[in-house]
């Protein structure tokens, strides 16, 4: 599959089509006019009470008394739901590992992290609700907190071996051994969680509006906790989102908590999380300790890899965890051709906020160790890191490439992308500049990262946490499907409804482009509804916004539905025009047969107003639903091999840094990233995702780390101390693209929203280690930490 090189986002590769063009987002005008509709803007039911949540002050404590009587005396307090009532009224959340400590939406007897909900106070407004929180009396009996992963309870411990690792290590000319810590960090979207919950005692059902992002597997988890059949939990998402980056998957916990409050109090309840709650109690990325051993041949061939991974998921194993541990399972060797891999994966509990989805999800945690190890090996082998990478990259002629752990890399030309990155970054010149800088005693470093970016997760990979025997006892899980519906109204208006719950990426724009191509209209003619309603939308358990799945399966479902509708329009038009359906062409909002045309509006009118005139076998109306499922995503096999993702993009990054020897401050002088994400559906949106992923990767590389004190109190509980990079903190970024279409997605597109979050921490770590001339660096590389490394 040939790679097409793009020189600029303004160059469209498919000029005659809307897909591929860098058209501006349709979403923007409403947002700029203040017409966005976010969770807190919605008032779907009248007279809702406002909730505030009482949270544990301690990381680990027995709650010996919780007395809300003084709060209930407040005239504007409507009621209180306690943790004990939560436990009585609901079931533990289901999770993919048996026998773990039960997890409820609030704690009853023992609080296991600072910030864990203990009770919900509902009042006339949020001010009063917060006043009343102070009136709830809680007595704690402190318990010893567990904060270090090595002391945490191990809830899952599995070892996977592929190929002949022992043989590979016995032949090695060089073995690199290193330990790495990937810091706990978080997504920090502008908009925090929000829920409106409306329990119906008549229906025995809960309707909840929440800024949930999927995956809708978690709808089943929430329904399970509530003891409701799926159809009795109606979940509706708002049309606009103030960002998620993974973290809003975990809103489902609060759908249950507020749902129970609504049920107990007999009134709708609304809750908007504030920033302090969000940082203390929403979710964080999994913190990972990794020991790596890598075996190399004298020429630099990577012969084998051994990982010993400990993932700290916090106080509870909460669905979809331990997915972080297995998301990258098909890509344990990254972009390299290594055939012998062993990985021991342990998942441990500590007294910290439970983990959840976070952009990159397992990728940053894998690539920091892997790419640092490659850089260290290059140094020891006397090779330039780019040369060592080149010798090990999967070759362009090897696709589709099956990795030893079962991953199926769909397409790519990794070496071409690496070459493009080296050229765009003026790599050779930068190496010469480095020599001159070193002669002047300056600390100048260059770091590379070459990573495979998996997208469109296999719903079955998580079952690797179970043994093959355990898996055999339940229904196999596989695939990744999405639905979409397209309606043409009697006047020819086109409305699309998707289940991809966009969080600001611009899905509506791309969906309009896809439909425009299929139906021969302009994107501006297409309305796209992004609000998902589990009672009325076309969705599947895999729906939602995660694993960068939109361009692959989300746009794919829209494409399929549009094709179905186009086929129907052609059939109707063929009868009117007196030709065969395959002779009909849809363009310019008309159906054409040669020089003759019939307008889309007229065709729509016919289908709605005059069904008698439709061709035989054609149903009245114009509404089609389609589901697209990515192929090749089978359940894990008996040897624990799994194609954990459907599509695999490739990224080659070059970071150039200078370190101030006096202060330890790292300045990123230049950063180049070259992507191959298959066919680019809208290059403007693509670059937005690249820049966002880059900013998100700069976070743990240079700024962000969640810290607790020795008692488990959160030290980074506000944006004063939790340091998200802001716009002026971001270094300049050069972006390049190659396009190697994926054969496994409907439109040839691959996900690309997470890749730089995976690559940037590794590339920056490599650059700083190169500048300092040392092997061991720890993220984030803040000035005080770098200065410590210099001492």
């Amino acid at each position, binding site marked *: 599959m040939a790679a097409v090189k793009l020189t600029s986002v303004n160059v469209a590769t498919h000029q005659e089509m809307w897909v591929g063009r860098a058209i501006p987002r349709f979403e923007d005008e409403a947002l700029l006019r203040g017409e966005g509709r976010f969770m807190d803007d919605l008032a779907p039911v009248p007279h809702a009470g406002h909730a505030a949540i009482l949270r544990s002050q301690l990381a680990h404590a027995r709650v010996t008394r919780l007395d809300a009587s003084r709060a209930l005396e407040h005239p504007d307090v409507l009621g209180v739901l306690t943790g004990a009532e939560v436990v009585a009224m609901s079931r533990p959340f289901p999770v993919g590992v048996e026998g773990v400590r039960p997890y409820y939406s609030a704690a009853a007897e023992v609080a296991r992290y600072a910030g864990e909900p203990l009770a919900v106070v509902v009042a006339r407004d*949020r*001010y009063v609700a*917060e*006043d009343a929180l102070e009136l709830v009396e809680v007595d704690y009996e402190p318990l010893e907190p567990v904060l270090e992963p090595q002391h945490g309870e191990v809830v899952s411990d599995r070892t996977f071996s592929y190929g002949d690792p022992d043989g590979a290590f016995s032949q090695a000319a060089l073995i690199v051994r290193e330990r790495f810590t990937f810091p706990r960090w978080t997504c920090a979207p502008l908009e925090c969680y929000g829920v409106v919950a409306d329990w119906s005692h008549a229906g025995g059902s809960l309707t909840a509006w929440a800024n949930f992002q999927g995956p809708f597997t978690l709808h089943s988890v929430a329904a399970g906790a509530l003891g409701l059949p799926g159809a009795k939990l109606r979940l509706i998402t708002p049309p606009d989102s103030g960002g998620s980056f993974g973290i809003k998957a975990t809103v489902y916990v609060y759908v249950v908590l507020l749902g129970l409050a609504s049920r107990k109090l007999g009134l709708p309840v609304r809750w908007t999380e*504030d*920033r*302090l709650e969000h940082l203390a109690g929403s979710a964080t990325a999994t913190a990972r300790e990794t020991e790596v051993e890598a075996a190399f041949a004298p020429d630099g061939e990577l012969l084998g890899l051994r990982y010993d991974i400990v993932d700290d998921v916090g106080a509870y194993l909460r669905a979809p965890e331990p997915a972080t541990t297995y998301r990258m399972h098909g890509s344990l060797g990254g972009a390299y051709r290594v055939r012998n891999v062993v990985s021991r994966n342990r998942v441990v509990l500590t007294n910290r906020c439970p983990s959840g989805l976070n952009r990159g999800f397992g990728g940053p945690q894998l690539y920091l160790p892997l790419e640092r190890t490659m850089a260290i090996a290059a140094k020891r082998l006397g090779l330039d890191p780019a040369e060592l990478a080149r010798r090990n990259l999967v070759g362009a002629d090897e696709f589709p490439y099956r990795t030893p752990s079962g991953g199926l890399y769909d397409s790519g030309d990794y070496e071409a992308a690496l070459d493009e990155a080296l050229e765009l970054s003026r790599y050779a010149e930068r190496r010469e500049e480095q020599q001159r800088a070193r002669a002047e005693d300056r600390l100048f470093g260059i770091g590379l990262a070459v990573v495979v970016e998996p997208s469109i997760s296999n719903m079955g990979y998580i079952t690797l946490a179970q043994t093959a025997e355990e898996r055999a006892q339940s229904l196999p899980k596989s695939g990744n499907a999405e639905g979409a519906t397209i309606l043409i109204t009697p006047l020819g208006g086109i409305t699309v409804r998707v289940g991809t719950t966009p969080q600001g990426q611009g899905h509506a724009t791309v969906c309009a482009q896809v439909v425009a191509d299929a139906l021969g209209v302009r994107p501006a003619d297409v309305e796209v509804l992004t609000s998902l309603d589990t009672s009325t939308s076309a969705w599947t358990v895999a729906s939602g916004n995660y694993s960068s799945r939109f361009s692959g399966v989300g746009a794919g479902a829209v494409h399929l539905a549009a094709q179905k509708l186009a086929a129907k329009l052609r059939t109707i038009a063929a009868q009117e025009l007196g030709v065969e359906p395959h002779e009909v062409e849809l363009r310019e909002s008309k159906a054409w047969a040669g020089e003759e045309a019939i307008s889309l509006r007229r065709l729509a009118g016919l289908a709605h107003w005059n069904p008698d005139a439709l061709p035989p076998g054609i149903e009245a109306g114009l509404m089609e639903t389609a589901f697209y499922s990515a192929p090749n995503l089978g359940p894990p096999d008996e040897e624990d091999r799994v194609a954990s993702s459907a599509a695999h993009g490739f990224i080659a990054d070059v970071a150039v840094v200078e370190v101030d020897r*006096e*202060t*330890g*401050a790292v300045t990123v002088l230049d950063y180049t990233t070259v992507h191959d994400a298959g066919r680019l559906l809208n290059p403007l949106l693509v670059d937005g995702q690249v820049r966002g992923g880059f900013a998100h990767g700069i976070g743990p590389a240079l*700024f962000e780390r969640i*810290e607790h004190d020795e008692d488990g109190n959160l*030290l*980074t509980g*506000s944006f*004063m*101390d939790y*340091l998200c*990079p*802001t716009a*002026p*903190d971001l270094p300049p970024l050069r972006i390049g693209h190659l396009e190697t279409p994926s054969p496994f997605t409907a439109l040839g597109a691959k996900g690309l929203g997470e890749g730089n979050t995976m690559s940037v921490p590794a590339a920056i770590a490599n650059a700083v280690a190169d500048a300092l001339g040392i092997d061991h660096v720890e993220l984030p590389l*803040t*000035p*005080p930490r770098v*200065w*410590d490394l210099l001492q």
Partner: protein
Amino acid sequence: MKPAPFRYERPETVDETVGLLAEHGDDAKVLAGGQSLVPLLNMRMARPAVLIDINHVFNLDNITDDGGGSRVGALVRQSAAHGVSPLVDCCLPYVGHFATRNRGTVGGSIAHADASAELPLALLVAGGSVVAASTRGRREIPADEFFVTHFTTRLEPDELVVEIRWPDTGPGVAFEELAQRRGDYALCMAAAFVRDGELRVGIGSVVDRPTLLEIDPERPGASAAEQVEPYGGLHASADYLRHLVEVLVDRAIAAAGRNAA
């Protein structure tokens, strides 16, 4: 993050304001730009019974020339304070962000006396002063007496900052800061003033208030570092912060010398 209940007052004159302060004293808080106070209210770390909003007080936002220096009304926004003093110009880029400087006031920053705030250090090194008003009259408090410790000044509970006086320093000044992100509170900052053989150097962020230091001209940074006992913290160790004092003092003195030339 909603504040505890408070009574809201919106006076329109200084007399009215100091009258309210005389009445409520320690129970009251003055709201100017609100860039520090409002988050503190929302986090319930500040719980005044009365909030006195001075944003509608007349004639508190004037800048007047004062023989080469400036008299800056307490309500002058930080973004409007460019040009009042070379040291203010040096430090303003480090003060928060564009948006916060459009609301935040010079007087509010000085009255708030955050040990990590730039404007108090600038005022101290510039040799400026604070004019406070109360029902008892007005008085001028030199900056080197004004700042006591964290969030604590010589202001009495019934006093309102009405004016900040920036003397003429000439161009020989500089401000150096290291923050982890643009606009953050600094890990460490240093300001220097050089004129006619006179040298004045102060540091901030690392101790409880902006502090002037005795400088050995042979080894300026090192002599400065010997005089401070920084608090280590979440973001940086005491050793690192002491080292930063040395580096930033050296840089500030060198830059002030260049600016003076």
